[in-house]
């Protein structure tokens, strides 16, 4: 059966089924778009030889909410709550990426305090996001981990601690709408640092248990090691970023390599693994949670005094204007490089002429045709879970 082309021995995603062995008795399995393990509404068609996937074809667009079209119709200050909904597991970082792009376009200075508070929120969000990932990944692996939902129940308990902190600051469990042009909207309440440290202590203590339940669990290792191996070169070419890229042995993290926010002062320890498989991706994310706990501790100690917003109060939504320019700003979200590309034009100075959100999950999913063939159906679920896609930002 011809499943590989001359492209460096890789699986060729563009081979049609008519290029495969016509004698083979293949079964077609529609996987998704409605299935709990698709992490939203993602669909892939799996051509199966027995239980082994021969070809996987992803289909997107089931949550295409026309965010980019909507953003062309809203003014610069109205867009923060819209992009919140893109990556709904880490809304803080969405807001940050968008507002940083607008700040660069409009030459708005962000005060040091706001940069630190943003970094603090981003790192807390990374822990919450990875906790959700760990819980749902355990669900994906199913019965291997104490009925599957055990770890899910545990990690959601800790995730609630972080959501409580955010709720105290912004009034919302998610979709915070707290970033704005030139800074942040909500200041840290009194005694916030004590609550953050208490939550971190609890999470850190429980993290050891999770590590025992997953990374040191022979069943978990058997289900993930050697499954869905993605080599670093291919990952780079596909534009894959974040933990998936680092698990493939590429030492790249925008927080360190192109610092923004307070990362010029806070040093990130980048976790890199060589395996490129689901196990390496899990290991990287657990290490990132630990590093984020350290960073949050440092950030909460180091938040400087001063103004929280460097932009004059906005009275009319149309008062912020840009007539020319093209900017691209990227930040490292829990899923990788989330970029905002904006073009301003004189035709409509209060809104972007074109806004494109470069989402890490879209690129992560583009690895599926390469790494799923050869795996079994249950491994395909594990691979999809290890890519941690959020369909809101894939389809936008």
């Amino acid at each position: 059966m011809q499943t590989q082309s001359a492209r460096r021995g890789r699986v060729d995603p563009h081979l049609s089924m008519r290029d495969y062995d016509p004698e083979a008795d293949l079964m077609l399995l529609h996987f998704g778009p409605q299935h709990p393990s698709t992490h939203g509404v993602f669909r892939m068609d799996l051509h199966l030889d027995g239980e082994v996937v021969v070809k996987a074809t992803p289909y997107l667009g089931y949550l295409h909410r026309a965010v980019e079209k909507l953003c062309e119709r809203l003014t610069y200050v109205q867009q923060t709550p819209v992009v919140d909904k893109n990556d709904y597991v880490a809304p803080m970082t969405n807001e940050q990426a968008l507002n940083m792009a607008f700040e660069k376009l409009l030459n708005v200075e962000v005060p040091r305090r706001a940069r630190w508070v943003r970094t603090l929120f981003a790192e807390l969000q990374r822990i919450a996001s990875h906790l959700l990932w760990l819980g749902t990944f355990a669900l994906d692996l199913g019965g291997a981990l104490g009925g599957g939902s055990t770890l899910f129940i545990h990690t959601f308990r800790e995730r609630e601690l972080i959501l409580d902190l955010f709720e105290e600051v912004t009034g919302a469990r998610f979709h915070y709408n707290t970033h704005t042009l030139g800074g942040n909207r909500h200041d840290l309440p009194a005694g916030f640092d004590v609550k953050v440290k208490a939550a971190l202590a609890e999470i850190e203590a429980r993290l050891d248990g999770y590590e025992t339940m997953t990374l040191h669990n022979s069943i978990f290792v058997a289900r993930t090691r050697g499954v869905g191996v993605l080599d670093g070169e291919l990952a780079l070419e596909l534009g894959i970023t974040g933990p998936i890229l680092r698990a493939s042995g590429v030492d790249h993290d925008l927080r360190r390599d192109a610092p923004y926010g307070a990362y010029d002062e806070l040093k990130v320890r980048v976790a890199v693994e060589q395996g490129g498989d689901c196990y390496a991706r899990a290991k990287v994310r657990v290490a990132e949670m630990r590093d984020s706990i350290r960073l949050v501790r440092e950030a909460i100690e180091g938040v400087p005094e001063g103004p929280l917003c460097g932009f004059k109060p906005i009275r009319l939504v149309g008062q912020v204007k840009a007539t020319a320019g093209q900017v691209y700003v990227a930040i490292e979200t829990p899923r990788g490089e989330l970029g905002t590309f904006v073009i301003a034009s004189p035709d409509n100075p209060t809104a972007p002429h074109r806004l494109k959100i470069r989402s890490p999950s879209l690129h992560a999913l583009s690895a599926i045709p390469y790494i799923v063939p050869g795996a079994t159906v249950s491994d395909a679920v594990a691979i999809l879970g290890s890519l941690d896609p959020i369909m809101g930002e894939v389809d936008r």
Partner: protein
Amino acid sequence: MAVTDPPERRALPVLAGAPAFDAPLYRTLLSAPGLSVLAGALDELLAWGSRNALWVFPMATSCCGIELMAAAASRVDLDRMGTIVRATPRQADVMVVAGTITVKMAPRVKALWEQMPEPRWCIAMGSCAISGDFYRNLYSVIPGIDTVIPVDVYVPGCPPNPEALMHGLLRLQEKIKATRAGTFAAPELNPALLTTTRPSIARVVDADRDPTQSDQQTASADHATASDKTDARPEGSPEPAAYEAVAPDASPARDFADLVRDEFGVTDIPAGMAPLVETAKHVALARRLRALGYKQLVYVVVSHYAAKTGARAAPERFELACAVRTVGEGSRVAAWRLALEPGEAVPTLVGVYAGADWQEREQYDLTGVRFAGHPDLRRIMMPEDWVGHPLRKDYAADTACPPWR
């Protein structure tokens, strides 16, 4: 609450409306002394059971789905109400529609709803499922799930807290109880609720909307499911471009602006913008940059400029922006632009960066710019037979898509 059902239905609500029980034999049987009381008691038991074991089918598409998960998880714990989440519609009583439903998803939601055994209920969770929220006037989003399937309880919020969802389930239990007892008053029959349950959100319609666009959309009746075709790579599309390994260039790092000036004939780089490169040199520049260590494709974006008349008259045009990145310490981004005429095809980058595949498909889908040599140029976001390219400036954002929106 007003009693709306006639009293004779209250005696045997479970039998009401079921044609089989209208048969004369049953009528005779039930007229036997005591039997109707027994049937009524059994019905009470059934009603108690059905409202205290509401198994949820999570139609979770987006953000609200995360709160639905949080509601099922440890803090709120829906299990204690007898509500557990089932992954298949055939085992579920309640469909919780949690998230935005798009025109591509709506037919699937309807199919799943039809697979649920009766009696079945639906909870619209969050403002997207209720009304479409701020996406309601956009081409791809349906304005509320109640345009597709009947909804019993609306849980407002963006997203609603897990506690709000729990409250919604309690209200559903009340509703089930009242319906079985024959005391349920639908909101439209309850005069006290008339003013509160009929929000009148004015529909924002583009003044310059082209009515023929919607007509074309209607003409493709099967649009939403046509993309169910498998292995849909179009017949006759170009063979996959041969992948060319690019040998790394060991020469010292050069400034990107100098590189495009010296080697790619760019004379003027406007401030704040990326250099404008000739379309013919697009692939060569990408290959050169890849050799120089720009290993990662960051984005491919096409923007559309509509034709303008009057003082600042300008023809219609497209512009493609593209960027690549070096990895590791001191990561740099190199970005360039191409100016495109309407209908002009851009040479594909798939042979240089495999990641260009989906990026270019997305831009083709949303703006209609074709990529020459792309092995699989299909729509990626919109259904396969969608009419028009949404991110063009002349595409009305609220284009209708009957029957879904």
